[in-house]
């Protein structure tokens, strides 16, 4: 009891002293050089120990026609070993292709590399075969590879085949870029013990292995008709070259050294003791890789192959201001490799700035640039369905939005020279009426029709100038006007003459014929037509007409015309018969006008 009291008192004293003993929390004090120590505290790579090599057949005894593996292990890096092209192989043994791998081991607090070379050997005939020792060049140093022997016996029942990996693929006929799953299986070994695998690799050209998505598990599988636990490593493989591809799997057994969390189902035994690092290989798997069809490719193809579905896109808000970002979230699901799904690229848009959110997000940040935007832009996207061998449209449809413009100030204070705010200036009120209106903002100076309008006064002045010139000419040459007037009057008289002839009115015929002849000769004198007499007309007739019947016709016409002034006018019954002669005379006189 007294002991407990003593402890209690000590605790109370400790609490009293705590404020003086405990300082404020400070950043951890790092001694000088500790960061350098962090950098150099990694285990060293052992390069000082002499390089050694081992060689052996696995298993050393096989039945005739069986297979074994010839393994050579060299404790050096693979790249430093100058491996010979040909080995001293007995001609009876059939060696397969060389396979090699490298692992780094931790020994005595130092890293030590281990390179392994493996050949699959077929032994068709019984016998004892030896591969003699040979040397390889390791970083400039000759290293002796010891001899190894293989016994092939015709009759050995119950021998187990050498351990090897099994490689399974989810598809052997794929399209370029189409991800598929590969399973590397290591069945339990002798004694039903399971082992880990390290440095698992798929060897072959034209493949890309996604090791970040590798999954390991221990499951019970059906192996050669027998249920056995096995270590299964599953990974995603993407072909990056078209054609027929061949690849194998390989890995080092590593005892219990599992490099990642592993799920175990069923009952398994783990190997005790130190691990044995043995490079195991699988049989090759052949893959037929086809190129994607060019025909029918839709906009927005980013290389996604599989079968995908898209939920309706989700827009954070559909009412936003100009310049305000909004997130458009997309969610895809389907049967393809979703981890390899590349979201659609941002399309170019006049009214939107579109930013693709960094993966793994499948969303876009949209920023409206103008309030004319009524919907988000459609984002083209499609995938290739390897089953139907067609491209499938998965375009993100436009989403209706209301974009409100950022208002500008409608008034602001005016600051005078003294820095004092004065009256506020503001925008005007609405104009109450349309006001002055024009047909077009384009000025008349640039309109071609206006040039045509300007040509109208030019034409008017030219016309006036021409009229004035004509008028002056006629003033200088009045006979032109008189003759023109005489021609017009003569045409009128000839019409009257024709009417009188038709009516059989001899008196009128004589009057009009005499007047017509007077009109036709008047401009030659010049004189008024009413002042012309028969002699004037005769003087204008040419000589042939004066001596012919024309003279008589003129005389008879004028005589008949003058007869009207007689006290007792006498009818001239044969006067109308002169019409042809009158016509001839008038034609000759008209020709002289």
């Amino acid at each position, binding site marked *: 009891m007294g002991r407990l009291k003593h402890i209690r008192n000590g605790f109370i004293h400790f609490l009293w002293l705590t404020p003086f003993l405990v300082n404020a929390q400070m950043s951890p004090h790092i001694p000088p050089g500790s960061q350098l120590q962090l950098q150099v505290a990694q285990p060293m790579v052992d390069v000082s120990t002499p390089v050694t090599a081992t060689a052996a057949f696995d298993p050393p005894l096989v039945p005739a026609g069986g297979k074994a593996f010839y393994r050579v292990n060299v404790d050096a890096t693979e790249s430093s070993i100058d491996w010979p092209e040909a080995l001293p192989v007995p001609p009876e043994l059939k060696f397969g292709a060389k396979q090699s791998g490298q692992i780094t081991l931790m020994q005595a607090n130092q890293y030590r590399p281990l390179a392994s070379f493996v050949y699959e050997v077929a032994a068709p005939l019984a016998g004892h075969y030896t591969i003699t020792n040979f040397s390889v060049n390791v970083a400039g140093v000759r290293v002796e590879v010891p001899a190894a022997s293989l016994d092939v016996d015709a009759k050995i029942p119950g021998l187990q085949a050498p351990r090897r990996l099994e490689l399974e693929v989810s598809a052997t006929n794929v399209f370029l870029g189409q991800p598929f799953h590969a399973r590397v299986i290591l069945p339990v070994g002798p004694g039903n013990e399971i082992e880990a695998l390290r440095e698992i690799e798929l060897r072959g050209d034209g493949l890309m292995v996604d090791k970040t998505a590798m999954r390991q598990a221990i499951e019970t599988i059906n192996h050669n008709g027998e249920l056995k636990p096995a270590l299964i490593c599953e990974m995603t493989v993407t072909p990056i070259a078209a054609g027929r591809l061949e690849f194998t799997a390989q890995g080092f057994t590593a005892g219990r050294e599992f490099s990642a969390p592993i799920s175990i189902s069923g009952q398994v035994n783990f190997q005790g003791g130190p691990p044995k690092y043995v490079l195991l290989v699988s049989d090759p798997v052949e893959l037929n890789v086809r190129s994607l069809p060019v025909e029918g490719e839709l906009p927005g193809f980013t290389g996604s192959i599989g079968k995908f579905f898209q939920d309706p896109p989700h827009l954070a808000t559909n009412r936003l201001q*100009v310049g305000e970002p909004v997130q458009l979230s997309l969610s895809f699901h389907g049967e393809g490799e979703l981890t390899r799904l590349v979201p659609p690229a941002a399309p170019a848009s*006049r009214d939107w700035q579109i930013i693709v959110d960094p993966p793994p997000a499948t969303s876009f940040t949209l920023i409206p*640039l*103008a*309030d004319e935007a009524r919907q988000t832009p459609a984002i083209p996207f499609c995938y290739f369905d390897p089953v139907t061998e067609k491209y499938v449209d998965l375009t993100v449809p436009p989403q209706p939005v209301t974009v409100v*413009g*950022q*208002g*500008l*100030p*409608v008034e*602001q204070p005016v600051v005078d020279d003294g820095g004092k705010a004065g009256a506020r*200036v*503001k*925008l*005007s*009120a*609405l*104009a*109450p*009426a*349309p*006001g*002055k*209106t*024009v*047909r*077009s*903002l*384009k*000025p*008349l*100076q*640039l309109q071609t029709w*206006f040039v045509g*309008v*300007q040509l109208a*006064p030019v034409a008017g*002045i030219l016309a*006036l*100038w021409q*009229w*004035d010139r004509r008028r002056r000419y006629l003033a200088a040459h009045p006979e032109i006007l008189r003759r023109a007037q005489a021609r017009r009057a003569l045409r009128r008289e000839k019409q009257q003459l024709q009417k009188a002839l038709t009516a059989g009115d001899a008196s009128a015929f004589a009057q009009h014929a005499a007047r017509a002849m007077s009109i036709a000769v008047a401009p030659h004198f010049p004189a008024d037509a009413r002042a012309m007499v028969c002699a004037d007309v005769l003087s204008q007739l040419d000589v042939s007409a004066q001596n012919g019947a024309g003279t008589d016709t003129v005389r008879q016409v004028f005589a008949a015309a003058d007869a009207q002034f007689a006290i007792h006018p006498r009818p001239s019954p044969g006067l109308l018969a002169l019409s042809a002669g009158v016509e001839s005379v008038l034609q000759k006189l008209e020709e002289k006008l």
Partner: protein
Amino acid sequence: MAGCDRLGVWVVLALLVCLAAPGRAATNDFFARGMELSRAGQFPEAAAVFEKAVEAGPSAGVLVNLGLAEWQRGHAGAAILAWERARWIDPADARATANLEFARQVVQVDAPQLKWFETVSTWLPPNAWVWLAGTMLWLALGLLVLPGIFHWRKAGWHQLLAALAFGIFLFSLTANFGVVSRTQIGLILKSNAPLRLTPTHGGEVLSTLAAGEPVRQLRTRGRYAFVRAAGASGWIGEDEFQLVCPR
């Protein structure tokens, strides 16, 4: 006979009025609708209606109201352009002048730098200058030519008036040249419009121009125009700016 001539003149005038009436009626309808929308605060819709009114027949009042609607919805470049166009039609429009001054203070852009003959051209509407020039030219020529044609007695006032008309014609020529020169002036519509070194989409951006900033279009190539701004010259997309007077 005189009565028939007078009747003909009235018929022609009535026909002209009838031809012009539908456009004016449409403008008035759009104008009234735009006023209602502006008063209701629906500025995007109001701007769209005023745009239709401008298409039916540009008028200073419609453009002033269009500028107000564009300003209220945050389109400073479009607002300044509308008010510049209102002043193009009616240089004496007080609302457009005051709004332009206010807007340029707010968005911190300069007015277009005008040459002296361009400044002269702003004293009257552009079309007035060309009619003035045409009238004065033909008046001067008529006074010199017609007395000789019609044998009018020579009078001193004929020559005085002709000299005056010819002087006004010469003066208006400079103003007309200013009008044509001002048709190169455009305004940036959107903020941060890129001024590029080459007329291509990927051309190097020399600088960016603010909305409402004035530029002069010197030539065009495809969908780009080579413009001269206050501090730089370069190519700009045709959708980034508009001329005050569309050619």
